[in-house]
């Protein structure tokens, strides 16, 4: 089998799905929803990538990891950063959400119909504690250790937890 024959888009997708997110390694880049498209032309592999949070220092690491993975498959990578159709947390797959929750990391809520999250949403919304499943939780800090996270506190099991922001 020639290299070109081995390089199908499906094979590239499979390989990208093995790459863990650099900051939240329980979830893969494909589950995170940052890979928008894969196009294969002979040995050349173009991966369209949509950044998560613009201040996230993991963005460059993600691009390097994807390019390395394509090279491992024998392809010549081109990672294209797309800004015309921005990433939203709604792109995290159901499997990705389940993995986040299992890791003690509350997945993002759905985006509101109006498009922008309001303070009242994150103060009063029914956010579920990833440890004990209680929705008796409160917002502790809009901001957390990375741009994608807020800090909440569970009144039921008295445990602080990290909540993925909805964007």
């Amino acid at each position, binding site marked *: 089998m020639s290299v070109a024959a081995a390089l199908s888009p499906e094979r590239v997708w499979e390989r990208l799905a093995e790459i863990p997110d650099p900051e939240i390694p329980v979830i893969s880049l494909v589950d995170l929803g940052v890979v928008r498209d894969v196009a294969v032309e002979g040995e050349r592999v173009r991966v369209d990538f949509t*950044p998560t*949070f*613009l*201040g*996230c220092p993991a963005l460059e690491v993600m691009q390097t990891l994807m390019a390395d993975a394509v090279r491992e498959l024998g392809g010549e990578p081109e990672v294209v950063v*797309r*800004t*015309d*159709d*921005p*990433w*939203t947390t709604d792109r995290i797959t159901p499997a990705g959400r389940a993995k986040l929750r299992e890791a003690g990391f509350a997945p993002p809520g759905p985006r509101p119909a109006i*498009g*922008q*999250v*309001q*303070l009242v949403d*994150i103060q009063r919304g029914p956010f579920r504690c990833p440890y004990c499943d209680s929705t008796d939780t409160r917002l*502790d*800090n*809009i*901001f*957390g*250790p*990375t*741009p994608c996270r807020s*800090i909440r506190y569970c009144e039921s099991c008295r445990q602080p937890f990290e909540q993925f*922001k909805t*964007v």
Partner: protein
Amino acid sequence: MSSPAPPAVDHLLRLADDELILGWRDSEWTGIAPFLEEDVAFSSIAQTEIGHARAFYELAARELGGTADELAFDRRPEEYRSSPLVELRLVHDWGRTIARHVLYELADAIRIAEVKGSPDPDVAGLGEKIEREEAYHRMHAQMWADRLAESEEGRKRLVAGLEELWPYALGLLEGEARERLTADVAERLPFFTPPEVEPVERGEHVDEWAALWEEMTMVRRSAPGGQW
């Protein structure tokens, strides 16, 4: 960068310079904010603002050539297109810091809504993305403005900051956007009546900008072309 950039690129540079310098100023609270949550909040906001600056610089670099880093750090201080509002050094004064935070976020919301309407899909897409992230900054700013306004001492300090910084906030925007800001401020900050004043226009730099530029560009100037 000696000849003036075309209007669309100049607009990107104004946005980028504002976000970069405000991010830098916000980061001055890291380690010395009134309590730990605000250390985290201002550090995170700073990181996001600088991320937005980088995205705007990258779009500008597409037109001007070079890289985002070159635009961010290799220009002379007088070449920056930043608004005086973001250049002011406000650390140690929480009331003025929150006043700038809330005025900047309200003005920035108007400006980013315009960016979203750009005919260039990359610029419009970036505007949409930034708007969603800035929503969290705006919530934080409003929450703090409301909290300070609850007590007599807090309101006094916040309003003093708003009065001092209002002409600077107007200078962040142009044309009709200034009227919108006046209306938005009156609605969101009912304890403050925006006075009719001459805006502090973009183009002049405040005295403390020179020292910030020295600090911001120091590493880059000490090792030109360095990679790490």
